[in-house]
């Protein structure tokens, strides 16, 4: 009697809904957060290499100057900026502002536009400096 023969029915998850920008940005926020979590290994490598000596720093500099290194830095910078912009949106929501259906959709679209725009601006500065 107490043994459950079949798994209990669960409430439907995200797969039953049409993809919306708010939903996509929610996923992006978590995905960029997790990517940054592991991306911290690269910042740590660079700092430890700098502290270790010229030889170790040379290896790190070689990597970050390579094609793969640029991909990592581009990904880390966009991830950081997207997570930051999305985080500001969450803080505004925490204040109870912009929670309506229409406003949250505008904020979601604004988040991706802002994160891409700021990343492009940042890399334009990098290209000018370097």
């Amino acid at each position, binding site marked *: 009697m107490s043994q459950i023969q079949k798994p209990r029915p669960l409430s439907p998850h995200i797969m039953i809904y049409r993809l919306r920008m708010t939903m996509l940005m929610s996923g992006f926020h978590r995905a960029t957060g997790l990517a940054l*979590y592991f991306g911290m290994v690269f910042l*740590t490598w660079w700092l430890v290499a*700098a502290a270790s000596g010229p030889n170790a720093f040379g290896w790190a500099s070689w990597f970050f100057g390579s094609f793969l290194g640029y991909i990592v830095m581009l990904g880390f910078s966009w991830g950081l900026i997207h997570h930051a912009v999305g985080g500001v949106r969450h803080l505004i929501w925490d204040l109870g502002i912009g929670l309506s259906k229409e406003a949250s959709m505008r904020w979601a679209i604004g988040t991706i536009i802002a994160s891409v725009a700021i990343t492009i601006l940042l890399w334009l500065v990098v290209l000018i400096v370097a």
Partner: protein
Amino acid sequence: MSIRTPMGRARGMGAAGHGVGEFWHQRVTSVTSLVLAIGMIFILLTLATSTYAEVRATFANPLVGGWMALTVISFVYHMYIGAQEVIMEYGPKTWKLGLTLANTGFCLMIAAACLFALIKMSFGVL
């Protein structure tokens, strides 16, 4: 095996009692991380074309070293809470303890390595 349902076992136990603390700490570290990250990007931008000696000279400045140390502390605490949230929501039940230990260990290692490097560069003569 108990005949009580999971809901029956959980009912009346109350919340774990520290959920609000984590929620609040996540918000506080989000604000500190935002401010600190802007400075970090500026520091890293200025070092983009620097030689090794210039990088070491920059990190010997206590303002730069201190700012980067605060950034690492803020980032690591924020990402620890965030990863723990993901583990609690998506981690399979039998994996939760192991993943929690892995998260704690990873965050401690990142923080220790970064802070050690920053302190060494602050105090150490090139």
